[in-house]
């Protein structure tokens, strides 16, 4: 995955996770609260409806009781029971007609004789009908009863009141009073507090044994005495089982999830359910959820946009550096990072550029060195090859002294090779910090004499005069014997090399309290001031030194400085072009080399 994608995902996560957590918990909290609140509401409404329906029933029972307490009516009925005469029937009809007129709520009154035959009715059609086998007669003979009864499909149901007409502890007949159901239906169809989907339903197990809705429903106007209750898990079934409860995971007759409260009205054997659709109840929570989802979506879009912009700003400098780094890995060192930002990446770019500058210098120095070193190595090798070949060539005749001279040339070339290889080895040891050091007790006088003797051929060739001036108090110093030899040899051979013939080279060694100071002075070409700062740089040779001769590896001063410093000393010089040079080397008399490190090096 790319860095930019990681940053975008991270920011997206940072923005969205808390939002979703807060949103989710708020939603769950809201839903829970709403559920509890709705349950409470439904319960209250169910209780109210229960009471209202009970009061309707009570009113009707009172009506029935008032009616069945008519002594005159019961007396006439008693006579009619014994001898049904048209006269008593007329009296009965007169009586009930008067009763009906007295109470406008009563729509029909029917008196059934104790034999089950209609003795009188405000509905003339019924007179004479035998109702002995009807449920209403059977119930009505025993007790007062209020029933909601269907009038047939499409008709409003009506309330029937049945009650025994008892006189002197004897049931003379049954009164059947038909009352309008408007009051009851008004209560059932009162949706106050139930929103757009809530309602009250009343169910009863009818004669066929089916639990059936008694009133038209909010979403099924034809339901009364027609639609049956589906399933034993429905709220209506629970109500009929006598449970007073609230249901949160129930489905209504439409199959829609609802919250419901149930009641059982024992006297009527009615199940009462007050319910509301969950979607409506939870609408607030659902709205909250959609608002949160919208917010999350908008946030995501914003986050992705800003994160992309941010990540691009953050990664562009890296890509820039990467591009240059790739060039470098292909060996091209000339390219640089150009857009330097004002931050850590900018610092990296600057450091990277500086590194490349150094690398380029180093690379040039290296390739210079390789061509220089190969030239330097090939020169003595060529010399060895040509002299050896000439000595062996039978067609090339030379005398004995000449042969000896050729062998001397061979040896000199070989020595040059060894010197050069040693110098290269020392450079590599210095560069990898693996220059071994011994703590030798060195008499500088002896070391100096040895070096001058080694250089005697060159001194003689150029007729150089060496003036040495040693401090009489000069004592031994502690330093690696090979180092002091390299240092002296480098300084003195340079003084000889860059001096015109027949000049003096002065060597002074002075004893200081804890140091010795070595001076090597020549009257040679000197070092141009502009190049003095580079004189100790690896592979560096001053322009005038180059003009003077092609031999010289540019390694001598580098090695000398490294050895002087590792021995705890310092090196400096005074020079000017064509003004000669004095090199100063100050070395401690005691061992200052860090031997702990040397042990590691070994």
């Amino acid at each position: 995955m790319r860095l930019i994608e990681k940053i975008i995902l991270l920011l997206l996560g940072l923005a969205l996770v808390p939002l979703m957590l807060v949103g989710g918990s708020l939603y769950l909290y809201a839903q829970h609260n709403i559920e509890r609140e709705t349950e409470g509401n439904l319960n209250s409404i169910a209780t109210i409806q229960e009471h209202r329906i009970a009061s309707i029933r009570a009113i009707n029972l009172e009506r029935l009781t008032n009616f069945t307490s008519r002594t005159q009516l019961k007396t006439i009925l008693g006579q009619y029971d014994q001898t049904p005469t048209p006269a008593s029937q007329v009296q009965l009809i007169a009586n009930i007609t008067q009763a009906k007129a007295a109470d406008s709520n009563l729509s029909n009154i029917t008196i059934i004789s104790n034999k089950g035959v209609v003795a009188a009715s405000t509905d003339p059609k019924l007179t004479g009908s035998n109702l002995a086998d009807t449920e209403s007669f059977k119930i009505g003979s025993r007790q007062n009863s209020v029933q909601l009864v269907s009038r047939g499909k499409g008709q409003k149901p009506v309330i029937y009141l049945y009650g025994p007409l008892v006189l002197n502890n004897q049931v003379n007949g049954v009164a059947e009073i038909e009352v309008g159901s408007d009051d009851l239906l008004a209560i059932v169809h009162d949706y106050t507090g139930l929103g757009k989907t809530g309602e009250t339903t009343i169910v009863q197990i009818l004669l066929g044994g089916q639990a059936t809705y008694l009133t038209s429903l909010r979403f099924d106007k034809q339901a009364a005495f027609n639609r049956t209750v589906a399933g034993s898990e429905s709220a209506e079934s629970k109500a009929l089982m006598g449970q007073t409860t609230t249901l949160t995971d129930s489905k209504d007759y439409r199959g829609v999830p609802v919250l419901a409260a149930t009641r059982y009205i024992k006297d009527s054997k009615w199940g009462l359910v007050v319910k509301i659709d969950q979607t409506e109840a939870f609408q607030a929570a659902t709205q909250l959820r959609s608002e949160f989802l919208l917010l999350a979506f908008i946030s995501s879009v914003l986050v992705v946009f800003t994160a992309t912009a941010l990540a691009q700003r953050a990664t562009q400098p890296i890509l820039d550096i990467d591009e240059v780094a790739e060039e470098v890995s292909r060996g091209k060192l000339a390219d640089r990072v150009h857009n330097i930002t004002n931050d850590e990446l900018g610092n990296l770019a600057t450091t990277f550029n500086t590194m490349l500058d150094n690398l380029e210098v180093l690379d040039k120095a290296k390739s210079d060195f390789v061509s220089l070193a190969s030239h330097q190595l090939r020169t003595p090798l060529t010399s060895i090859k040509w002299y050896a070949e000439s000595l062996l060539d039978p067609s090339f005749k030379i005398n004995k002294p000449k042969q000896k001279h050729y062998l001397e040339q061979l040896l000199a070339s070989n020595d040059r090779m060894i010197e050069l290889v040693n110098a290269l080895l020392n450079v590599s040891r210095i560069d990898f910090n693996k220059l071994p050091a011994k703590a030798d007790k060195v008499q500088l006088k002896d070391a100096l004499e040895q070096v001058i003797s080694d250089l005697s051929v060159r001194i003689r060739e150029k007729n150089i005069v060496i003036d040495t001036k040693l401090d009489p108090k000069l004592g031994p110093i502690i330093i690696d014997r090979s180092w002091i030899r390299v240092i002296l040899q480098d300084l003195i051979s340079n003084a000889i090399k860059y001096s015109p013939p027949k000049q003096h080279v002065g060597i002074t060694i002075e004893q200081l309290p804890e140091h010795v100071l070595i001076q090597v002075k020549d009257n040679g070409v000197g070092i141009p001031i502009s190049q003095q700062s580079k004189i100790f740089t690896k592979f560096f040779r001053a322009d005038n030194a180059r003009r003077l001769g092609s031999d010289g590896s540019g390694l001598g001063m580098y090695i000398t400085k490294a050895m002087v410093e590792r021995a705890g000393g310092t090196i400096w010089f005074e020079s000017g072009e064509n003004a000669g040079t004095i090199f100063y080397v100050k070395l401690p008399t005691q061992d200052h080399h860090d031997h702990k490190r040397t042990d590691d090096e070994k």
Partner: protein
Amino acid sequence: MADKRHKILIVEDEEALSEILRDRFENEGFDVFVAKDGAQGLLMALDKEPDVILLDILLPKLDGLSMLKKLRTYEQGKNMRVIVTTNINDSKEVHEALALGARDFLVKSDWVLADLVDSVRSQLEEPYRYVG
């Protein structure tokens, strides 16, 4: 013209090398002149008008290629045979030398002297003209 003595100018700062070159070419019947740097080499080339110059590249004072460039500006130097001998084999310098009409470019350590002498002798027998 086998009886005519050829003149050879050796421009070489390494004394050990110039010495053995001188000995071998003299032994082969050449008139040998040796110059230690480019400036001296240019003067001797114009003065002695050698038949062939063995020219080193890394030289004090005036390097070999600069000397060759200057040589080509003189009338006598225009068609002089020059064999560049060096111990660096940088292709840039090879091209430059050949563009300046160097007859050959040879790496010293690759050659034995007997072959070098033969090569110079055979080149002297071919006609040569530098069209700069």
